[in-house]
């Protein structure tokens, strides 16, 4: 049960982090009252790769990240870590993270998260279709002298 909750929370936090900030703001223009536990702050995360894709880790380079933590009136705490430097995005994502732990969850899932997930899927599928349209088959030609 705890594991299911963790998996679900990972899912929505990731969805919120990857959502285009403007889109999230359009879906949820007004935020309910909340207190900032940690004001939005920007920093970096060092992204690591693996040597030869499968070996030991190495430092590839950094990304910008903004994080924020909020507390709702009912005491529920929400956190957000989002890529980029958009403080409003981090704050909105933290509020949604908090609300998703309350009875508002079902409503938000329907009005925000499902839409974001569907749009992300659509964007991925469109790109994958473009890539698939460039799939080729190379044929090895038999050289004249070998024929």
């Amino acid at each position, binding site marked *: 049960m705890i594991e299911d909750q963790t998996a679900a929370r990972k899912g929505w936090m*990731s969805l919120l982090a990857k959502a285009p900030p403007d889109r999230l703001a359009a879906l949820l223009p007004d935020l309910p009252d909340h207190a900032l536990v940690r004001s939005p702050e920007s920093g970096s995360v060092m992204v690591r790769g693996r040597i030869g894709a499968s070996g030991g*880790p190495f430092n*590839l380079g950094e990304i910008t990240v903004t*994080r924020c933590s909020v507390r709702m009136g009912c005491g529920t705490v929400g956190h957000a*870590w989002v*890529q980029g430097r958009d403080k409003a995005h981090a704050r909105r994502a933290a509020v949604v993270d908090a609300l998703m732990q309350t009875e508002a969850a079902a409503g938000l899932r329907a009005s925000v998260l499902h839409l974001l997930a569907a749009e992300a899927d659509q964007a991925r599928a469109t790109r*994958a279709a473009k890539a698939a349209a*460039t799939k*080729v088959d190379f044929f090895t030609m038999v050289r004249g002298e070998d024929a």
Partner: protein
Amino acid sequence: MYVAVKGGERAIDNAHQWLAEERRGDLSIPELTIPQIREQMKLAVNRVMAEGSLYDPDLAALAIKQARGDLIEAVFLIRAYRTTLPRFALSNPVDTGTMAVDRRISATFKDLPGGQVLGPTFDYTHRLLDFALMAEGEAPSGTPPTPINPLERGAPLVPHVTGFLDRDGLIETEPATDTTPPDLTREPLELPADRALRLQAITRGDEGFILSLAYSTQRGYGRTHAFVGELRIGRVAVEVDIPELGFAVEIGEVELTECETVNQFKGSRTEPPQFTRGYGLVFGQSERKAIAMSLVDRSLRWNELGEDFTGAPAQDAEFVLYHCDNIQATGFLEHIKLPHYVDFQAELELVRGLRAEAQAQREAAE
């Protein structure tokens, strides 16, 4: 030695103001916006992100605008900005096996699971100037993508090519470890540098320098007989352990280019004959850099593979690592244009003294 000088404030202010005017150019031409640079100069943005070692397309676009298109100056701006950011965390290593690929090709296998995907490539273009782009026209409409098998929608399974060779024991294995790699942004680069540190230095190194070194290995200076086993470009998720939660969350995505080379290796006292590997991984769509990186990586591995050091530049870790960073290089190079009046005065005195001495000797001899 550079000695501080005073004065010149007004001239400097005026120079900077003129710089701003020159950057803007002809006022009758619309000003470039950051989104325009980000969307339409994407490969320049990618290069600035890779060599600036900070993935943020908007900031890279801003840096390019501010630097008037001087990409090394833009990298400099990004590096300087990066130092102001608090480091929140290290990501979990990205899994390029789950990459949503835009492009994936292999020069070693023509039929492979996941297929050969060309993606938006310059390859097979004729390199003829397209004057249609000069006549400010409509966006290219193009034909809509050919309908494909619905089973192939979404991210298709695209296994790594080296995995096939790995399975047959024909290529050296690259076993996963979880050691914390050294970080040259935290500790000065020191030799000997392990492979993790070398890769970090090369992935942020100057593309032109890495390209030339890689080319030198192909021409015989430390030849490694590389095949491009696989080249892939696409997006991968960045996952971070969130300390306040105690679990990992995918907080975003980065576009990466990955190149794995398959290289000849005759075997050594301890290893049977098998293929060896070179690895390149670079921010953004940076194909030339990723291929070059994998060649230079392989070349620098001569010692651990028991190969001979032939004195080739690309085999020399000190030469490669201490000269590949274009910000270090340009900083040292360009500082010599700053006032060196005291240094030069001393040199002048010395030369005058030597000349007087030589003159006196000549006169004494006559």
